[in-house]
């Protein structure tokens, strides 16, 4: 059924954007974390989005988006001079996560807007479905 497929397309996007929001929250929450189970400071996490193509490739319509990986940002950590910090090295420098709060906030807004857009898309689909159901009434 075409209609229901379009609705699940919106659903894949909603879930992908939600995961993105979760990761942004995690990045912001851990912006000052200097110790992790893997050792060293927290590394910023980013989702990787990819187009989710329909199984039958000749049917060019896809079926939304999927998160193919959650990767760590490889950029270097921030080095801050803080000799009193327990995690400071012998020169007095502490490595802080490579999280830039301003960047995260911008991403947060973008993800929120994208989520809203997909909710709207879902609702228009519902309206169309209702119009189809009213035919012949």
């Amino acid at each position, binding site marked *: 059924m*075409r*209609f229901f*497929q*379009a609705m699940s*397309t*919106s659903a*894949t*996007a909603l879930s*992908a*954007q939600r995961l*993105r929001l979760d990761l942004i929250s995690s990045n912001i929450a851990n912006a000052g974390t200097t110790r992790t189970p893997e050792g060293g400071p927290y590394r910023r996490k980013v989702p990787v*989005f*990819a*187009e989710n193509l329909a199984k039958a490739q000749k049917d*060019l*319509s*896809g*079926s*939304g*988006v999927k998160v193919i990986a959650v990767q760590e940002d490889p950029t270097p950590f921030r080095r801050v001079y803080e000799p009193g910090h327990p995690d400071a090295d012998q020169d007095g420098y502490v490595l802080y996560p490579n999280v830039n709060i301003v960047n995260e906030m911008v991403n947060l807004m*973008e*993800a929120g*807007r*994208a989520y809203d*857009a*997909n909710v*709207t*898309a*879902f609702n*228009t*689909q519902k*309206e*169309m479905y209702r*119009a*189809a159901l*009213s*035919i*012949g*009434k």
Partner: protein
Amino acid sequence: MMFSGTVDILSASLDWAAERQELLIHNIANADTPGYKRKDLAFPRVLAEKKLALATTHPRHLPGSSWRSSAAPWHKRNSARVDESNVDLDIEMARLAENTMYYQGVADRLNGKFKNLRTAIGGR
């Protein structure tokens, strides 16, 4: 001819709009996918020709075709974004609204047609 082709044309239009809606929703879902190129359906000019089917007076004449076989989703290759995606969310949302209105309009016309028929059948 009870339906006089109107119902056929309207329902083909509904099919087209439903299919386009799916592509537009797919575009919106992939607004943040790097390298994604938007998909769309061309407006079926053949829809109008459906009623005025081409006369074939010679075996090599082409009969014309329905939009299903002729209109393929097209992609626009250019992109203004750093991540090489060419989805503009605002334009996509505008197209979505437009397509929904179109669908509702056609569904409304289809209802009108059925209402006329009902009046004719009921004689009231």
